[in-house]
């Protein structure tokens, strides 16, 4: 399966990546190669093989429902570019 320019642009947009116009063909080729590899794997007969959700043959350990974290807001907000009234400030996200 070959990806075209618009596929690459929409993938980049979904990942919020800014890519140079000149680099698009190279990305298209690289990504297409990955899909070709996936297609190759898809051609293997996997009937009778259980889908793998995780490479480890283990199950999730569960935590007891206990509050173990204290308020560390001042510490955690030290590196935030902008805070006000305890809120993180980000560029406006609605019109």
């Amino acid at each position: 399966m070959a990806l075209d320019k618009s596929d690459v642009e929409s993938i980049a947009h979904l990942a919020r990546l800014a890519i140079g116009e000149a680099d698009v063909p190279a990305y298209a080729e690289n990504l297409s190669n990955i899909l070709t590899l996936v297609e190759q794997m898809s051609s293997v007969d996997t009937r009778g093989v259980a889908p793998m959700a995780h490479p480890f043959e283990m199950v999730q350990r569960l935590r007891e429902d206990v509050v173990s974290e204290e308020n560390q807001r001042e510490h955690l907000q030290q590196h935030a570019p902008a805070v006000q009234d305890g809120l993180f400030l980000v560029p406006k996200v609605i019109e």
Partner: protein
Amino acid sequence: MEWEVVIGCEIHTQLATKSKIFSGAATAYGAAPNTQACAVDLGLPGVLPVLNKEAVRMAVKFGLAVDAEIGKRSVFARKNYFYPDLPKGYQISQFELPIVGQGKLAIELEEGSSKTIGITRAHLEEDAGKSLHEDFHGMTGIDLNRAGTPLLEIVSDPDMRSGAEASAYMRKIHSIVTYLGICDGNLQEGSFRCDVNISMRPKGQEEFGTRAEIKNLNSFRFVERAVEYEMERQIAILESGGKVVQETRLYDPDRDETRSMRSKEEANDYRYFPDPDLLPVVVTDEFIEAVRATLPELPDAKRQRYIGELALSEKDAAGLTAANATADYFEALLAASGCEAKLCANWVMGELSAALNRDGLAIEASPVSAAQLGGLLQRIADNTLSGKLAKEVFEAMWQGEGSADAIIEQKGLKQITDSGAIEAIIDEVIAGNAAQVAGYRAAEPEKRGKMIGFFVGQVMKASQGKANPGQVNQLLKSRLDALL
């Protein structure tokens, strides 16, 4: 053309755990911004999620309550999208293997009929934070206290065919999750939110039409109204030859309309994949059976018991069992008063509910406890109080003036049941209203029945509402008829 609406709901219920689904931060509502958001909730590098056992237990409990298949092996997946209140850039959710599979429940409709609605699935996921768009000098404020709060998203089959059915379904889920104690059900605080998918098709057609999704409805009434508005909107588009656009819309209760949300050109391209940070979750049969043993009596069973054992009407039984707290109050009242179930039901659904509504109180916060109300009902049962006086005493109890007996004593509200005393009042009324008495005597016999109401009113007034109305009626009639 005759149109049929097809409705499916996705309900997000916040699970009532103490800590978050993947971290040990608290989930309590209303804390100062970002004081309950730890490194895991903030999505800082190097952190790992650890699943809360209680969230799993609650999800299984819901599954058992709706006869669902429990996913013995469920898998968490990443749902990828960018929004500032989702710090990791993905929401941990479940996709292919949810913890709760196909189930069902019954909803009750106005006409007293019931309908089975399928539950497609219910899955565990984390809530996002909150964005505050008010005045921050052109910036948006982010509070991540809610980020990581456990949610159970309950997805219905597209089985509903009217706004009333959608609203009845939402009420039923609300009733079940609050009975189970897995969600506080607080609609105002956002603990219980409903997204509704609505599409129209010509009646008789199998195939579904294009749907619109109305997001974040937090009231039963809004669900019904949003569906009705949306039906009209879509029918108008279809009948004028247009096409309904698949999109997300918001309901504006002030204008009673739905509006398109900002268009997401990458709509629904969430690129789900299994979250490598979490291993598959396995619930054992022992775990499931242990949860089953904790299931309380559910609303349907309770309703049937009230109808069967207590001989209550369908309407009373449905009203009393809709919320667990109401049923608890009713049962406490029944035990405390020793009165008939019907009398208890009338007071809970009537006077008490009206007073709670008026003062905006939940039944748990009622100023008149079940035991205190029981004391009042006993005075009705033993004829100390008429229904009207009882309401007066109730109002005084509501204002904190004391027990029923104390108020009756203090206000001298004992009902007059002594025939001699009532007859004396009747004589006074007859003597003082000669014109009406003459009118009564002159009237056609079939009209007298209505006219007697005037005299009853006068006697009740003269007795300050204390005369037993049944006796007044009876004594008046024989006294007046003797004058004919």
